[in-house]
């Protein structure tokens, strides 16, 4: 396991309000490394998040809006943020009251360092 990957996930996980983070192989939809709460399946989250990211990326591309950089899901109890990092997708799960601006900034920084 690359230290760079582990460090990126650990750094993201330390941001206030972040419940978990993982790096996903964009093509295979498999987790590369993750820090998730107990009971949460990294494999399942990776598969769903990458599938959703791919699908929305295709829609954006088809509509002529260009490459998808960030996808953010809003839910009653939190947020899921997925950021394009080249061959990887960074997925961050944040609590409802998380400082989303900070979470997004860190996710983009991580993407820049990994892409």
């Amino acid at each position, binding site marked *: 396991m690359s230290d760079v990957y582990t460090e990126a996930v650990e750094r993201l996980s330390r941001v206030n309000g972040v419940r978990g983070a993982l790096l996903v192989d964009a093509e295979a939809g498999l987790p590369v490394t993750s820090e998730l709460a107990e009971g*949460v*399946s990294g494999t*399942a*989250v990776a598969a*769903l*998040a990458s*599938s*959703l990211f791919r*699908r*929305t990326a*295709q*829609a*954006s*591309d*088809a*509509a*002529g*809006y*260009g*490459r*998808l*950089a*960030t*996808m*953010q*899901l*809003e*839910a*009653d*109890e*939190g*947020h*899921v943020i997925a950021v394009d990092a080249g061959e990887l997708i960074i997925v961050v*799960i944040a609590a409802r009251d998380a400082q989303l*601006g900070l979470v997004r*900034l860190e996710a*983009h*920084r991580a993407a820049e360092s990994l892409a």
Partner: protein
Amino acid sequence: MKKPAQADLQRWSEEVARDATSLAFLPLARAYRRQGQRAAAKQLCLRGLEHYPTHAEAHSLLALLYLEDGERAKAADEWSMVLRMDPNHFDALRGIGFCYLEQDQLSLARQALERAALLRPQDAAVEEALKVLGTRQELHSGGTRTNAWSDDLKSARTDREGDDIAHSAAVGVRADSSADTVADAGAYEPWAESPSTVAPEAPVISAPPVMAAPTPPAVRPAQQPLSSDPSEIFAALMTGGPLLGVLLLDGQGLVMAGSLGDGSAGSAELLGATLGPAISEAARTVSLLSLGGWRGMLLEAGTAVLHVSPVRDDAVVLLAARRNAPTGWVLRTAGQASEIAVRYLEEYA
């Protein structure tokens, strides 16, 4: 921001004298700038950049020094360089945003300032600039004034201090927001003072009466009467700005109402058809993570920001905005679009 100790200055000086490649040039240049020795500070920056040509903070400091010397084009060049190295460099975004604003390049100013606002939503200088910018754009669209920003600056600055100072105060530029530890010891932020600590003589940039924001409509867009034309139901939201269009899609991704800014029904149908299946996946993903009900999805692509939110159980609202639209604005506008969609579904569908 505390002053660097004399011992620090001495140490940095010795380091730079001993080793021309020492990174101590940056805190030393900051200290010189603070002491008003801008020529020396500039020279240090230029020398340092010979060894570290991609040092964003050094370029950023050099930009400030140029600005203070009235060399605005050079300042803008330096900030452009910083942004090529670090597109999220707050100081550079803010600085170049004000340069654009002053040059009346409103679209570019908005792009830079809104990105700066995303990074630091609480920055008062950026917030104020965006207000002025919004009013300027309103005036431009009305064709009533052509050089209001320059006039604003002139009316806002004090006679004692020059245009540069007025510009600087408006810019509110910080010297070093993300400097390294050594540099932090010497950081100096003359323009980053909070309102409570602004020196009495500091000029305050505020919009004169002629620049006052237009009176908001008495009725919110979401409460205005609905058009009987389905493609026009979101027209109340389409008042310029970064909004490209809004669509109401059914559960199969078919367009029920609304339109996209390009007027192309084809792209609206295409977007609906390709995004439609993603909705159920979004709901499944948040459910798997025990995050409760799905409330929306924000997509940031190369040239646009899209927001999808569910309306009742069988429809979604899709909003498209230009890429530089602030996220908070997108979310609020999406909320209003949802209100309109709900009314439309209740009254017509």
